[in-house]
């Protein structure tokens, strides 16, 4: 198998409006790809469509994880197959503690009869929370309820670290984080980098890429990738903005779905 993750000609719509207009991307195992682009170009739609959010309707295209057809799977099956999306706006769920939630998620992967022991689970969770400098009391807090923006982002990374996915999508994980929190989150991601695991990092700003070095940088406009390069592309975007890309490609309005 040549690639870990492959997206071919993906088209996706929300409320009948097409946002992704034929998106292609191939990622090898162990690679870190960054997707940058102005607001409204379809970056979050890409993340949500891959994960199978019910509001997004995939109308065309294919997505493969290790050769398996992701779009044929239910949302939970995608996760168990190794897909993980760190969400921009994680849900708050009253009455479900962070620990109960994560234990259910881990056990869903392990299957009946092979559940993780409570003591092993607690040790694992405590260890990962320490790495992310999270207050141990967050273990028994209700899921994301009353968490600050930064705490929610850290909690997403905690889930990633505990679930050990194959393909991680980080959707604007840097938004709402101060520089110290950003460094901690980036350290968590870097600790997870391995030859078997790939990362797709969606961000507005190059700042995050100072801490998580990408192998490839893609610019997204009008619902597809319009330019690809190495880390130097991100630096140029940070310094000069997106206008030069638009000029080079003759794009007038970079956004999608803004009729």
């Amino acid at each position, binding site marked *: 198998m040549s690639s870990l993750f492959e997206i071919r000609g993906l088209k996706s719509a929300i409320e009948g409006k097409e946002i992704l207009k034929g998106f292609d991307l191939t990622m090898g195992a162990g690679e870190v790809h960054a997707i940058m682009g102005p607001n409204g170009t379809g970056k979050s739609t890409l993340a949500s469509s891959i994960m199978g959010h019910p509001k997004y309707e995939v109308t065309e295209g294919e997505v493969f994880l290790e050769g398996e057809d992701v779009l044929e799977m239910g*949302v*939970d099956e*995608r*996760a168990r197959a190794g897909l993980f999306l760190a969400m921009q706006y994680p849900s708050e769920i009253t*009455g479900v503690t962070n620990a109960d*939630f994560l234990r259910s998620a881990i056990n*869903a992967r392990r299957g009946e009869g092979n559940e993780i022991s409570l003591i092993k689970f607690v040790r694992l969770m405590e260890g990962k929370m320490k790495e992310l400098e999270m207050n141990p009391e967050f273990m028994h807090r209700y899921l994301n309820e009353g968490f600050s923006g930064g705490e929610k982002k850290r909690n997403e990374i905690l889930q990633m670290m505990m679930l050990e996915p194959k393909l991680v999508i980080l959707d604007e994980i840097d938004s709402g984080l101060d520089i110290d929190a950003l460094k901690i989150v980036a350290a968590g991601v870097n600790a997870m980098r391995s030859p078997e695991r790939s990362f797709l990092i969606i961000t507005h700003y190059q700042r995050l890429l100072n801490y998580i070095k990408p192998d490839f940088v893609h610019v997204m406009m009008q619902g597809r990738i319009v330019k690809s390069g190495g880390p130097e592309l991100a630096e140029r975007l940070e310094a000069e903005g997106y206008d030069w890309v638009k000029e080079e490609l003759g794009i007038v309005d970079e956004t999608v779905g803004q009729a």
Partner: protein
Amino acid sequence: MSTPTTSFGREAAAAISRSKNEPSWLVAWREEAGELAATLELPKPEKTPIARWNLDVQGVHRPGKAVSSPAELPQAIASLLDAQSDAPVIVQHNSSVVFARLPEELKAKGVVLSSLEDAARTHEDLLRAHLMKAYEPNEHKLSAMHAALWNGGVFLYVPRGVEIEAPVQAILFADDAEATFVPHILVVADANSRVSVVENVTSSLGETEATLLHNGAVEVFAKAGAHVQYAAVHHMDSSAIDISYRRAVLDNDARIEWIIGDMHEGNVVADTLSVLKGNGSTSDAKVISVGTGSQRMSLTTRAVHFGRSSESDMVTRAVMKDEATAIINGISKIEKGATKANGQQTERVLMLSPKARGDANPILLIDEDDVKAGHAASVGQVNAEQVHYLMSRGITRTEAERLIIYGFLDPVVSEIPLEAAREQLQRILERKLG
């Protein structure tokens, strides 16, 4: 709408009282209640036509068999109490109290835990000063019937400054659908005392044509600075009707915490009221319910503020399945003069079936300017966004919905102060939620 006619009255009430050798003051008191029962109308809970329910039921006096150790109690309630511990507990079986246990150390401090029937002889003054002063016989037909017929019952007195650590457990159990099952629980917490009570109402009726009427009442009097936590889990067979009026009267700086699981399988009228009489008194009421089958429920929480700087918070959360109906009323009333009072309430209903019905009716009645009050109410289905979030971590849809539904009720379940009662509530939830 017609009120069921009943042959019950003054003479019948007195006759039952005399047959149980009750003290003469109580016989006279019951006579009056019997007379009221013959004349008063049924209460009219919002949008719940209880006149159609089979409430014209007096039952017959069927005392349970008194036992000297918990091991001899009916098997059906064995799981509800810890036989090894010596924690305070009292058990009513059908029409009478059959077991009571209070550690010597608490007796020595002046704590009283007995049947209300016994207390009518041993603590006449305390009873005459408190019994049905918060829930009065003349409110309606059900309160009058309750006054005339209450049996067994629980009297808990906690003297000034005494703190009881282990929760006091009251188990009210019926296995005879024809029995008069009318327990009254009276808690008098004297100044600066602390106590938790856990009440379980349960039944094991089997196949029966009869309707068991649980016409129960709870009165809590928290004197200045006293803190009372009152948890109740009600779960009876669907052939039973659960009528439960709960009242707390709070003096200065007193506090009540209600933690209620209205989990009954049949029709329910539950009305939980805190009267914040004293300055600085506080009330926190948390109620959960699961409606299943075709049951009809009227669940009301109320707070009435008289005291300055008194505070109340009420939260009701109900999960509705099948064709069940719940009318959920929250009433926060702030009287003139209750300056700096704060009354808050929330009603949330989770609908799991298109045929179920859940109405949330928040009401604020405010007669004073310098106060805070607020309410929030919602009726909705399991949140699709939340389900998606959980599924995106590999959890199946069924398990995700289960986590969300149980989570919705957890803020009350996790606060039940007694492990056996908490586990009982979990078992009931698993049975009702499937």
